């Protein structure tokens, strides 16, 4: 397909610690189309954030290293770029929004100056033009009275407004791809809903592709066109959002969806998945979900299930399917 913006192929990222190699991302492949929102969902420590950081190449070096694979953005393999070339990609082509709006802004500069910094870096503009760009970035994020707000310091703003400013910085150079790493976790529910609606709006206006990293199925259902479910550094299921919710094929996906609290069911207790994910230091030979799986078979213990495409755009790695 020609409208594919980002193609991640067989990405391996490891952390080399004193105790040994931790395979945080172990052979992840997916693609993101232009103007599409792609969700990555999974529990803590499954490698979703590391996947995001690997794409933008911001792993905490030297411990974290991309061991193999390709990350192709618009025809160029990002993993082959030099540090200097990568800096030009960051901000202009790819941007990222971090979790915590309280600490993502520098306390000593006005928000206008902080947005202007990345505008100046990536576009050769005169000061008056920079000002216009800054204000239009704030307007894109629907920050009221942007002309006055540019002179505010971060401490003068609420958490929701700050997260919008972080969004404005990320969008200031109109990147093609935006990686949002749980951007709404630190916000309360009403602000969260507003923020998500805002992103849909921005996507309509700019046709930016978004990778949405979250553990919240509500956010996924609301935002994403397609979803990948990650478990222990691997993608276990990829599908269109509606299909994933209707017919989840992997037992882990089913279990995750079942553990979301629902108002329309009066369960006695909230469903939870027994056990813990395996240690990423020494992975068992078979399916990684095997010890916690309710439908495990003998083959699951011994061999890793292959990825099987069961219908258009819906692929699963599970022995039950293949």
């Amino acid at each position, binding site marked *: 397909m020609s409208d594919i913006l980002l193609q991640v192929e067989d990405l391996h990222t490891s952390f080399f610690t004193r105790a040994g190699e931790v395979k945080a991302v172990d052979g992840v492949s997916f693609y993101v189309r232009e103007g599409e929102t792609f969700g990555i969902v999974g529990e803590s420590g499954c490698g979703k954030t590391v996947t995001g950081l690997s794409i*933008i190449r*911001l792993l905490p070096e*030297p411990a974290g290293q991309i061991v193999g694979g390709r990350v192709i953005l618009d025809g160029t393999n990002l993993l082959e770029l030099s540090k200097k070339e990568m*800096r*030009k*990609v*960051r*901000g*202009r082509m790819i*941007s*990222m929004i*971090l*979790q*915590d709006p309280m*600490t*993502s*802004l*520098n*306390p*000593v*500069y006005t928000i206008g100056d902080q947005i202007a*910094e*990345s505008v100046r*870096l*990536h576009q050769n503009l005169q000061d008056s033009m920079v000002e216009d760009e800054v204000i239009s970035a704030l307007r894109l994020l629907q920050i009221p009275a942007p002309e006055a707000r540019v002179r505010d310091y971060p401490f003068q703003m609420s958490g929701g407004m700050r997260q919008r400013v*972080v969004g404005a*910085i*990320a969008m200031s150079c109109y990147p093609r791809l935006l990686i949002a790493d749980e951007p709404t976790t630190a916000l309360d529910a009403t602000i969260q809903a507003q923020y998500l609606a805002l992103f849909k709006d921005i996507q309509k206006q700019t046709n930016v592709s978004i990778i949405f990293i979250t553990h919240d199925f509500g956010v996924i259902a609301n935002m994403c066109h397609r979803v990948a479910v990650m478990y222990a550094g691997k993608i276990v299921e990829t599908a269109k959002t509606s299909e994933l919710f209707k017919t989840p094929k992997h037992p882990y996906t089913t279990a995750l969806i079942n553990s979301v609290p629902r108002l329309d069911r009066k369960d006695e207790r909230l469903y939870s998945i027994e056990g813990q994910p395996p240690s990423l230091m020494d992975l068992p030979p078979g399916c990684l979900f095997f010890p916690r799986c309710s439908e495990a078979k003998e083959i699951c213990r011994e061999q890793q299930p292959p990825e099987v495409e069961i219908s258009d755009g819906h692929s699963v790695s599970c022995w039950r399917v293949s």
Partner: protein
Amino acid sequence: MVRLFKRSAEKQYRGMTRWGRFLRNLTMILPVIVLSLLIFTAIFADLLTPYPYDLTSLPERRMPPAWVEGGSTRHLLGTDTLGRDILSRAIYGARVSLSVSLLAIAITAVVGTILGIFSGYMGGRTDAFVMRVVDVALSFPPLLLAILIAVSLGPGFFTVVFALSALGWAGYARIIRGESLRVRNSDFVAQAVINGVPPWRIMLRHIFPNILNVLIIGITLNVGTFILAESAMSYLGIGIPPPMPSWGSMVADGRNDLDRAWWISTFPGILIGMVVMSGNFLGDWLRDKLDPRLRQL
């Protein structure tokens, strides 16, 4: 009765806080007055001094201060063993002592800050290397190195500055490195990297302003240390060569006459003490003001 008691207690409490507030600000007001007066006299030493610093007058040797039996208003603070006016020498001494230590502070602060930020930001081997050099510098006896430098370069203004700076940067480097480490791990630095901001710009624009308060406190607290170090060097005879006075060498001049002419050593000694205390008070006050954790009260 109860109300009255309450009111008086409240009044007392209020009075105490006002007194406390005054005291707290006194530790800023006094040092600022003292230091600016001294800097003023140092700059205008030529106009303020009654006599040149090297004018000897043998008949007037060891003349006591004006208010002591045998003193004269011609020499307000008395004269030294060569009959030189102590007041004039103390004023010129301010020029030497202050300029040497301010220059040394500027050099050490700049070098220490650059190395500290660089080391803290780069981390890894760079950091380990710089910090080991700092360890060596801090474990070296400063006076020994000062003597070595003075002996090998010969006495003079810049020798003293160099000797004071040679080790002084290490303390700054260590403190600034720790602060930079804290700032570099914050999300806004990560966000800057994400936006494609180059490393030197992150150090300059994002890290430096956020460590500035620590640096300012470090500098004010160091004023005293450097004045003392300069005095110590002059006292040992490896400082500014005579007849140019510095407070340290003036104290040294009077050490053989302490029983007969206490004023020769005492007045420059008092000045040294005043500057050191002013620096320390000002540093403490700034630390209280700039540290957000202490600002709550």
